[in-house]
């Protein structure tokens, strides 16, 4: 099994860096992007296996980024994240191929479970 590469995409820098640090403590390879464009660049270069993607971001929003990620590599598993709490976005995301949907603030244990499930699904789809 390959190493779990996680990409965190969120415009809230404090949030994304802190979360990255917490995941790194748990021995995960974590990349961070503050916007959709950067995220897509990282997808091209670093090939993350699971991406945690905020739905509401300035510029490219989460759902647009999701579509483009899936166009680049449909195997990549995307967990959508929303502060808005709207299940509507979650349902839209799931239809576009997202793996799961979480509402902020998240429980780290729950996130790790989801990341592992996503990672497993990525490996299975290879």
């Amino acid at each position, binding site marked *: 099994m390959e190493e779990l590469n996680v990409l965190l995409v969120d415009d809230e820098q404090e949030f994304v860096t802190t979360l990255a*640090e917490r995941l790194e403590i748990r021995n995960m390879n974590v990349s961070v992007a503050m916007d959709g464009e950067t995220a897509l660049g990282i997808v091209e270069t670093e090939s993350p296996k699971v991406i945690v993607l905020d739905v509401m971001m300035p510029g490219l929003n989460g759902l647009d980024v999701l579509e483009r990620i899936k166009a680049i590599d449909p195997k990549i598993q995307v967990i959508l994240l929303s502060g808005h709490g709207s299940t509507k976005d979650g349902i839209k995301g799931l239809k576009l191929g997202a793996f799961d949907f979480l*509402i902020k603030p998240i429980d780290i244990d729950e996130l790790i479970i989801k990341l592992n499930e996503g990672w497993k699904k990525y490996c299975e789809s290879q």
Partner: protein
Amino acid sequence: MKIKFMEMLTLKKIIQRLFEIDSSGSRYDHFRRNIRIIIIVLTLIPLTVMALINYHQYLKSLKHEIITPEKVLVNKARHSIEFFLKERLSLLKSISHMYAYEELADLKRLNRILYVLKNEFSGFVDLGIIDGNSGNQLCYSGPYNLQGKNYADQSWFQEVNLNGTYISDVFMGHRKFPHIAIAVQHFEKSGRSWVIRTTIDTKMFDNFIAALQLGEKDDAFILNQKGIFQTSSRMFGDVLEKCPLNIQTTGYATYVLETQDKYGNDLIIAYTHFSYPEYTLVIVKSHAVALRTWFALKSELFWVFLIGSLLIVIVVFQLTNVMVNRIKEADQNRELAFRELEHHRKLSSIGRLAAGVAHEINNPMAIINEKAGLMKDLIAFQPDFKNQEKFMAQIMGILKSVKRCRDITHRLLGFAKRMDVQIETILLNELIEEVLSFLEREALYKNISIQLNLSETLPKIDSDRGQLQQVFLNIINNAMAAIDEGGTIIIKTQEENDDTVLVSIQDNGCGMSEETCRKIFEPFFTQKQDGTGLGLPITYGIIKRLGGNIEVKSKINEGSTFYIYLPLKSTN
């Protein structure tokens, strides 16, 4: 001028007031009254004007129709009487020409002539020959002893000497019965003149009048130039009395006048003058009899007008009732719709606000969560961390608070856009019992008795289980909060109609004022110290979304009852 202007202003004000609709509670009554006045006035004015015009025009033409035959009748009668008199005059003239004085002075011959006249012509009473100079009656044939009577001083003798002929007014003779005298003067070539004179019984006039075949209340008579009755009148007097009517006794035309008798009865009088002698024939008809058809018609016209007006008024009343009631109903529906719209608008704006707030709070909350989480991780991954337990306790406090905030924002978001509806077939009685199982412990603790009166025949409904649970949980919770220890909650289910079931939840708690009842479904309205004011608005929203309705009846210190109507088939 000023007064007229003021009057116009007042009229304008009245008309303006008719079209005004005030905003008071009785505005529909005013509106109804104003519409009635306007329609009744607008319909009855033309109807009345038309009825009056018809009345007068018909009266005018009918009078003309009645008067013309009266004129014809009086003229015909005059012609007959005139002909009668002229015929008698011509007979006398013929006799004077046919016989010589000596022959007529012979009593036998005179008797013979009178006999023939009486037999062949009616009305002759006697016949006399009078000397033209002395005025002595030379020969007389008739019922009276008038042989040798001198007429030289009498006006008629002088008149016949002057005009050649003479027809007298009616007078009473020796035997006191009314008659007229006709005399003709005859000149002989020798220069001698004599007069032949006869008396005519005026019974003949009565016969002519009888031939007119007048009605019982009608009258006809002849007047002389001085207005003295020449024949007796049924209504106004006897022969030779003065006629009380003001009738013109000279002229050439036929006249009609309307007057009244001494009893005040209306009369139509037609009269015409004789060319010779100067008599006036008068026919009197009772106005009531002559215009009998008119009165009948007038009465019919009156009833038609009255019934027509009455029908208009009834129809206007009914129509305005229907119309105003419909307007009132439409207004009420509109007001209700507005209120509901307003209510929904409030809920939806609160929802949007809640969503915005939740989002804005969730992001910083996520940062706090992660920061605290990282601290926790760092401490947890270093076993020799100083004061680890104390720090962990602080961090856990932060994380617990974050979780509490998350719960609040999630509840707010739930209010803003609630979860998707999942329709399934539900046994409502079971669902209520299920909900009660959550509350049993609390009820026991507060010594609250919950009585169930659930209909065994209650049909299954298609609805959302989770949301209905939330609804009943919320309302029963509220009921428990409203009652003191030892209170009672009665839950009843029943089939309201073919499409709806009704669940009523009654408590004997503190109850609510009317004002509170009106506001309880508004967001953030609460009477509890720690209440959010979102419970009942959420309940209201859920029930509405499921196609149902909720009502509340309450009385202070007596308790409240919530009625929840749910459709058998969800409209969602």
